[in-house]
C-alpha cells in the first residue's frame, strides 16, 4: 500500500466569517505549462522571475475585438496603445494583425517609427507634444489629438511655418452616468468648451478637423458608459456636419476596457466582473447608431485599447524563496519577484496559481517580494496551498503596464519571453545586466 503524501502538519482556527473550507484554493488548477511549454523548462532556460507572453492569447484577444467590431460597424480601426506594453515583439504582433499605433510621447513615437510604422497610421495623444515634436510629426502626416488651446496654437504655428494643412483630432471630455469624469484631458463637452475649441479650429482655417476623440477613463466595467459616450460623440458629429459642413473621418472612443484583473476595491473577481468584448462593442455601436449621415460618409470608429488586449496574455513566473509564520498566524511566502517588477500589484489582487501540483489544507497566506521594504507585498492575504522553497507560482494577467512601469531598483529587471503558437519560445527582452544600468552613468573628473 502506498503511503499518503506528506504535507506540513498544520492547524487552522475556525473564525467568524472565515469558516468556509471551500475557497478558491480547492478549485485551483496548477498551471504547469503555458501554451504547451512547461513553466519548469522556461525557468530553467531563462531564469526566475520571468515574464511570459502568449502569442496565441495576444492574437486571440485582438481578433475577438476586431471581429466583433467588424460585425457591427463598417469602418473600424484599432490603435494599439503603446504605453501598456511597448516591447517591439508585442507591438509587432498587433501591427501584424493590422493595428495602428496610439502613442502619447515622442519616445513612443520613436519606437513606432523604428518599427517601420507608417506615420499616418499613428494617433498621437497626450498633454505634452512640444512644438519641436509637432514640427516633426505633423509634416509626416501623423494625426495629433489636440488636448488644450495652447497646443492648438502651437499646431497652427507649425502648419503655417511648414506650409501644410495637417489633419488633427480634438479630444473632448464628458460626463456619463456611471463613470466619474476625467475632466483634465481635452475640452469639456457639456460646458460648450469643446464646441468653442472646434469653432476656433475651423475659424483659424490652418488645421483639418479629421476626428473627435474621448477617453472616458480606465478599467471601466460598465459597458453602458460607452453607449453614452458614443452617442454624445455621434451627436457632436451630427452638429459639426449640420452647422459647419464638416464630415469627420473618424470618431475615436479611446480605450479603458477592463482586463480580467481584479481591482483591490472590487468585490467580484475580474473573471466575473469584467464585461466581454461583445458587451462593450454592442454598447459602442448602439451609441453610434445616433449618427445621422449618409452611409458612405460614416466616420471610421477608432478604438485605442491596450490593457484589455495584452493584460490577459502576460504571466509572471516567480520562485518561492522562504516560508514563514507571521505573528497573527497567517503564512508568509517570500518569492523572488517584488513590487518593483510587478508594479500592478499596487492596483490589483492578482490571480496567483501554483505551477506544480499541490495538496493539503490551504491557509491564509501573504505573498511578499524580495525587497527589504515593508511595502513589498505582491499579493495580500489569499487562501493558498502549502508551498516549499524552490516551488514556483504564476501570477496571471500581468501583461499590461508592468514591462513599461517596472522599476530598476536594487536588482536587474527580469527577462521577458514569448511563447509562440507551435511550442516555440524566445526572448523578447533579455534579463538586464550591470552594463545596462551603469552604461549611462558618468563620474565627473573632480571626483
Amino acid at each position, binding site marked *: 500500500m502506498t503511503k499518503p503524501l506528506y504535507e506540513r502538519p498544520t492547524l487552522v482556527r475556525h473564525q467568524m466569517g472565515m469558516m468556509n*473550507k471551500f475557497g478558491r484554493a480547492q478549485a485551483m*488548477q496548477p498551471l504547469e505549462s503555458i501554451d504547451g511549454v512547461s513553466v519548469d523548462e522556461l525557468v530553467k532556460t531563462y531564469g526566475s522571475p520571468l515574464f511570459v507572453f502568449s502569442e496565441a492569447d495576444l492574437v486571440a484577444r485582438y481578433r475577438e475585438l476586431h471581429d466583433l467590431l467588424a460585425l457591427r460597424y463598417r469602418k473600424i480601426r484599432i490603435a494599439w496603445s503603446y504605453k501598456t506594453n511597448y516591447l517591439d515583439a508585442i507591438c509587432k504582433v498587433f501591427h501584424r494583425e493590422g493595428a495602428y499605433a496610439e502613442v502619447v510621447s515622442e519616445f513612443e513615437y520613436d519606437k513606432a517609427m523604428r518599427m517601420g510604422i507608417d506615420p499616418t497610421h499613428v494617433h498621437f495623444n497626450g498633454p505634452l507634444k512640444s512644438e519641436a515634436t509637432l514640427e516633426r510629426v505633423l509634416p509626416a502626416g501623423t494625426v495629433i489629438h489636440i488636448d488644450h488651446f495652447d497646443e492648438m496654437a502651437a499646431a497652427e504655428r507649425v502648419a503655417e511655418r511648414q506650409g501644410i494643412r495637417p489633419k488633427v483630432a480634438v479630444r473632448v471630455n464628458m460626463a456619463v*452616468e*456611471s463613470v466619474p469624469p476625467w475632466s483634465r484631458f481635452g475640452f469639456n463637452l457639456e460646458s460648450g468648451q469643446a464646441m468653442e475649441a472646434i469653432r476656433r479650429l475651423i475659424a483659424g482655417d490652418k488645421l483639418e478637423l479629421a476626428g473627435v476623440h474621448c477617453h472616458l477613463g480606465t478599467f471601466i466595467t460598465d459597458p*453602458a458608459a460607452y453607449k453614452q459616450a458614443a452617442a454624445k460623440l455621434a451627436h457632436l458629429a451630427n452638429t459639426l456636419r449640420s452647422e459647419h459642413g464638416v464630415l469627420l473621418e473618424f470618431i475615436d472612443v479611446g480605450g479603458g476596457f477592463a482586463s480580467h484583473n481584479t481591482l483591490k*476595491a472590487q468585490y*467580484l473577481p475580474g473573471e466575473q466582473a469584467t464585461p466581454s468584448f461583445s458587451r462593450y462593442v454592442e454598447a459602442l455601436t448602439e451609441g453610434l447608431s445616433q449618427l445621422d449621415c449618409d452611409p458612405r460618409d460614416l466616420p471610421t470608429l477608432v478604438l485605442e485599447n491596450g490593457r484589455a488586449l495584452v493584460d490577459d496574455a502576460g504571466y509572471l513566473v516567480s520562485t518561492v524563496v522562504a516560508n514563514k509564520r507571521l505573528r497573527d498566524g497567517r503564512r508568509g511566502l517570500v518569492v523572488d519577484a517584488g513590487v518593483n517588477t510587478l508594479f500592478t500589484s499596487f492596483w490589483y489582487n492578482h490571480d496567483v496559481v501554483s505551477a506544480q501540483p499541490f495538496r493539503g489544507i490551504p491557509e491564509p497566506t501573504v505573498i511578499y517580494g524580495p525587497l527589504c521594504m515593508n511595502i513589498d507585498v505582491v499579493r495580500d492575504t489569499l487562501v493558498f496551498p502549502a508551498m516549499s522553497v524552490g516551488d514556483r507560482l504564476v501570477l496571471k494577467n500581468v501583461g499590461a503596464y508592468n514591462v513599461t512601469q517596472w522599476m530598476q531598483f536594487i536588482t536587474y529587471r527580469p527577462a521577458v519571453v514569448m511563447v509562440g503558437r507551435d511550442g516555440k519560445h524566445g526572448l523578447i527582452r533579455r534579463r538586464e545586466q550591470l552594463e545596462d544600468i551603469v552604461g549611462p552613468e558618468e563620474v565627473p573628473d573632480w571626483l
Partner: protein
Amino acid sequence: MTAAPLTIAVTGLNATDNPGPGVGVIRALRAHPDFQGRIVGLAYDSLDPGIYAHDLVDDVFLMPYPSQGLAAFSTRLAEVHGRVPFDVVIPTLDAEIPTFIDLEPQLRTLGIGSFLPSQELFDLRSKAHLAHLGEIANINTPATRVIADPNDLRQLEGKLEYPFWVKGAYYGATEVHDVHEAIAAYHQMVAKWGVPVIAQAGVDGDEIDVVAVGDGEGGMVGAVPMRKRLLTDKGKGWAGIAIRDPEIEELSRRYFAATKWRGPCEIEMMRSQSGELHLLEINPRFPAWCYLSAGAGMNLPWAVAQLAAGRDVAPMHEYEVGKMFVRISLDQIVSLSDFESIAATGELHRCTPGDAS
C-alpha cells in the same frame, strides 16, 4: 393534479440581525400546500444560522464565496448536485446573482432551473443607473451621483443637499450630514463592497417596499407592497404590514413593463410628503421579509420555484391586506456534531419526517 416534487436549493442562510432572505424563502416554499420535495441549503459560513434550522433545511452544503471566482463556485455547485441532485436553485444574495446569471447555461445542462434576469438587466438596476431606469419607466428618482474618489464628495457641495445617503455597490446605506461623515461612509462602503459608491439625495416621507416577481416578458407575476412598522437600530424592518395602493401597483407594473425584469426583486420606494412616489432602489432578489407574501396568500417564492422549473404560473392578484409580519429572535440548540459536520466536511444532512428515501 399535483406536479412532481421539486428539490429546491436556496442560498442566503445568514439569518442574523441583518438577515439574508434564504430562511424566509424556505419557509414560504414549505408553507405551500403542494410542497413535498427537499430543501438544499447553500451556505457561506459554518455559523450561518439557517444551517441549524433542522425543520427547514434537509441538506446543507458550504459554498465558496462568489468573490472566489466562477471556477471555484461552479466546481462546488456541480459537486453538490452530484451529492443531492436538485431541480431548481433560488439565489437570494445580491453579490451572488451575477455568478448565477453567468452559470445559468451550465446549470441548465445539469438539469437545474433558475429564474433570473440577464446580466444587462442586472446592470441596469444597479444603483449607478437609477436615473436612467427612472427615465425609461417614467418613475421619479432622487438625484444620484456615482462616486469613485472621496474628493468627488467635496465637489457635491451645492449639488446635493445634506443630509443625503451614501450607498454601497451591493448593500449598505448611511445617512450623512456633512462632508466628513460622507467621506467616512465612503471608505466604509469601499472597504466592504468596493467601488462605485453612490451618493443619493434624501427623500422625506414613508418608505414602501414591494416584493414582486417579473415574468421576463414585461408582465408582473405578482406583487405585495409592505410598509415597515418597526425598525431595528440598523434601519432594518422588524415588523411590517401588507398594504394595497393602486398607484404603487401601477408603478410596479410600469417597472416590469419597461425593463422586462425576469425573476424576483424588491422595489424600494418613498412616498414623499407631497404625495409622489420616488423609486429608491431595485434589489435583484427576494427581500428577507418575503415570507409575508406567503402569509398574505400570494406565495411568490413558490411561484419562482415553479417558473424556474419551467412550469407556468398565472399572474396573481389577491393577497390579504393588513397581514403583518413581526420578526422574532430565538436561540436554536445545536449539537457539536452538526457543527463539526459543517466545519470539517462542509455538509450536513438530515432525514426529514416522512422522507421515504
